[in-house]
């Protein structure tokens, strides 16, 4: 064996060893390895995709407009107090995304410009109309998306999911992947809830309060609002409390007339946890405010003794207890006939904070664990059968050369799996299909060479020069056909979502590795066979 061939044999052996080392974490053998190995050697291997291990793939859209609306509202309120401070007679009103200020006198205009330079101002029939500038709106939306991402990350951490993937996509979308989640619905609820906790005073003094029915059926809320909405005084609103009849399970909605002004929000929380009520043995969520929040809470309760304080989450009233006395210390409870899980989830979202803008689910793909397992089993079987079919065909058709091609094929599979493990690539079901197809394509290169060799033999060449000629002449054909496959794989990778990306990865790795195994792998075997003795016939 000359040195050139020997170096190739070493190269092949080294790649196989390397592939095995990288793939080891995916086998039970890894657990048997000594400590130093586990510590210093690759320990991740191939990652199973959501479609194989089961789990949740979610895409949320952050409704950034809403964040801009909230900012506008806040500015309107700030302007109102600014005018009061400066003793200017001016009224401020928010209309959608714009603030309308009357009158449009130069003094008023000056105050507005100084307080909020980001407002783009326009005169409109004696009124001053301000809108947050496009650039600033964009910044607000952008920040909102970042904050939403952070809050979602927090919630998932507290919910407890191993290896979640959370990232931003496009301008205002967030992708969340949760492998192995057992209760997908609960996870979706926790992540997607805005969780804006607000405290407002119930307006029992308005004559309307007495007229409101005690409860309406679920789904009839809008009807009620249409009936009474016109008579609401400015600064009041109607929200609903969900009431479940414990015996019949019937859900009704109780309208609650509230003063619109939010006195305190969940932003001032430091702690939220589940506690069990001693008297009714029911879970509730106990919250603790920070010092600022505790001060506000003390103020509110002090000023509104004997009135009712409504605790509202995402525009749903949870409870509205009567304030008996001033409460200091900053402790409060949220009750509302929760189940244990509901209470736990509420505590999680309160701790993690509210979303600065609501989110909308764009996509939700859930795969149960059993389907994933079935897919893996089916993929293994198909892979085995496919490989066997190809292996047998090659031996029948090309005899000894077929055996050599099969050797290259096995080498190809080993290296492909090793490369995927080295890259910690994600294996998906289409990815398995990619491997199996790569098996079929892997031998194609050898077929091209062998057919060339047959031609050379027919032309009367010696076995050795037939092999050389076959390799040389087939090379560019093989190269061209591989490149075209790589082009489509690249497009697939660029465009595809999770499972399809996995397919693109296995396909392109398979094709690239195939160049190595077909050109170097089989050539080496031929060289070894033809090195020692003068071969009379090529078994092809």
């Amino acid at each position, binding site marked *: 064996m000359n040195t050139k061939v020997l170096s190739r044999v070493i190269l092949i052996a080294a790649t196989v060893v390397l592939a095995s080392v990288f793939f080891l974490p995916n086998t039970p053998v890894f657990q048997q390895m000594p400590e130093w190995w586990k510590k210093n050697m690759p320990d991740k291997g191939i990652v199973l995709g959501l479609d194989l291990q089961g789990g949740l793939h979610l895409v949320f859209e952050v409704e950034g407009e809403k964040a801009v609306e909230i900012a506008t509202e806040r500015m309107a309120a700030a302007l109102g107090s600014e005018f009061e401070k400066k003793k200017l007679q001016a009224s401020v009103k928010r209309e959608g995304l714009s603030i309308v200020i009357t009158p449009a006198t130069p003094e008023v205009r000056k105050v507005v410009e100084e307080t909020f330079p980001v407002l783009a101002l326009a005169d409109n029939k004696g009124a001053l109309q301000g809108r947050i500038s496009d650039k600033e709106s964009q910044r607000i939306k952008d920040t909102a998306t970042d904050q939403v991402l952070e809050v979602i990350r927090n919630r998932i951490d507290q919910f407890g999911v191993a290896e979640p993937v959370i990232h931003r996509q496009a301008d205002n979308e967030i992708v969340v992947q949760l492998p192995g989640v057992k209760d997908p619905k609960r996870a979706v609820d926790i992540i997607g809830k805005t969780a804006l906790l607000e405290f407002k005073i119930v307006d029992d003094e308005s004559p309307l309060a007495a007229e409101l029915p005690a409860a309406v059926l679920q789904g009839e809320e809008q009807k009620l609002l249409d009936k009474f909405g016109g008579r609401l005084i400015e600064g009041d609103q109607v929200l609903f409390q969900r009431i479940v009849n414990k015996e019949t399970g019937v859900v009704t909605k109780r309208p609650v007339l509230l003063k619109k002004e939010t006195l305190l929000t969940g932003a001032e929380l430091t702690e939220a946890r589940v506690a069990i009520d001693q008297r009714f043995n029911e879970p509730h969520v106990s919250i603790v405010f920070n010092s600022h929040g505790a001060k506000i809470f003390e103020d509110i309760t002090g000023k509104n003794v004997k009135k009712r304080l409504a605790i509202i989450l995402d525009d749903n009233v949870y409870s509205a207890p009567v304030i008996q006395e001033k409460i200091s210390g900053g402790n409060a409870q949220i009750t509302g006939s929760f189940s244990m899980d509901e209470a736990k989830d509420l505590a999680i979202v309160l701790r993690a904070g509210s979303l600065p803008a609501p989110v909308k689910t764009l996509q939700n793909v859930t795969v149960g664990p*059993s389907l994933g397992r079935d897919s893996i089993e089916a993929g293994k079987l198909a892979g085995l*059968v*496919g490989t066997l079919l190809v292996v047998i065909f090659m031996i029948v058709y090309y005899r000894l050369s077929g055996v050599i091609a099969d050797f290259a094929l096995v080498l190809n599979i080993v290296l492909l799996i090793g490369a995927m493990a080295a890259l910690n690539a994600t294996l998906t079901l*289409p990815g*398995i299909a990619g491997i199996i197809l790569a098996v079929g394509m892997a031998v194609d290169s050898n077929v091209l060479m062998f057919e060339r060799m047959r031609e050379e033999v027919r032309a009367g060449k010696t076995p050795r020069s037939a092999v050389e000629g076959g390799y040389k002449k087939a090379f560019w054909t093989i190269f*061209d056909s591989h490149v*075209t496959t790589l082009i489509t794989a690249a497009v*697939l990778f660029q465009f595809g979502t999770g499972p399809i990306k996995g397919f693109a990865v296995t396909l392109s790795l398979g094709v690239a590795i195939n160049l190595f195994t077909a050109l170097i792998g089989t050539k080496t075997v031929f060289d070894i066979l033809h090195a020692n003795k003068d071969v009379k016939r090529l078994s092809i």
Partner: protein
Amino acid sequence: MELIKNPNLDFMGKRMYAFIFSGALSLLGLFAVFAIANGKANLGVDFAGGTAVQIKFTQGVPLHDVRLALEKGGLKDFDLQDLPSENKVLIRVKKQEEKLGGFTEMITQILAQSFADKKPVVDSTTEIGPKVGSRLKEDALWAVLYAIIGILAYIAFRFKFRFGVGATIATFHDVLAVLAVFFVMGKEINLILLSALLTIAGYSLTDTVVVFDRVRENLKKYLREPVEAVVNRSINEVLSRTIVTSLTVFLSALALFLFGGEVIHDFAFAMLIGVIIGTYSSVFVASPVVILLGKKDIRAKK
């Protein structure tokens, strides 16, 4: 072993038949593309938007019973499909909902109540909002286009431009033909099929490149023969490798089709048809198109 010894078939002489056959197939494929664009085809939930829920029971459940139960429960406009061997039922609702998740909950609740004795378990659910659906559909068309442009550019770079055109038309033909088959059979057109189509686009070129390579080589070698004869000779010379390379991929796709499981079934089916059509097109479409584009200075150096 050899499949065919020294074949000498007159492929070029039959090209008119091939053009008619392929033209019809491609037209059908184009029709399918328009149908897809207008939402008339059997689009998967990923393209059309909507909800798909797959439920597994412990025993077989007649599809009719599932339909009745769902209708009684108030679900409208849904499709049912069953996998009797696995006791599974797939329910698809192609209607959009403002807030995702409602249909899934409704379906699982109705079935859990109606078939409590057969312990329905949710195998998988897919909910796609309208925005994602139409975006995926648009992206899919671009993906196919990008792939084909990439291929055209590469082949034109390696061969003469008209070979690039020939290869591209053959590739388009293959993709359209598989699409046509799926469309006619009423099979679902989804993302998985799209990845199969792109794979077919890449793979069908392998055979075309093999033929083109030989055509180029022979054009220089047999200077006195008419171009048609050289092309015909080249196709015959590489015929056995064209068939054998396709056969190996066909075999692995077959294993995938038979044993790869439900999720990958249609993908494997598309590959099976794609390999056959790709082989056919590399013989009957790619080279004839090159000749059709003109024989002048075809022998000139690139």
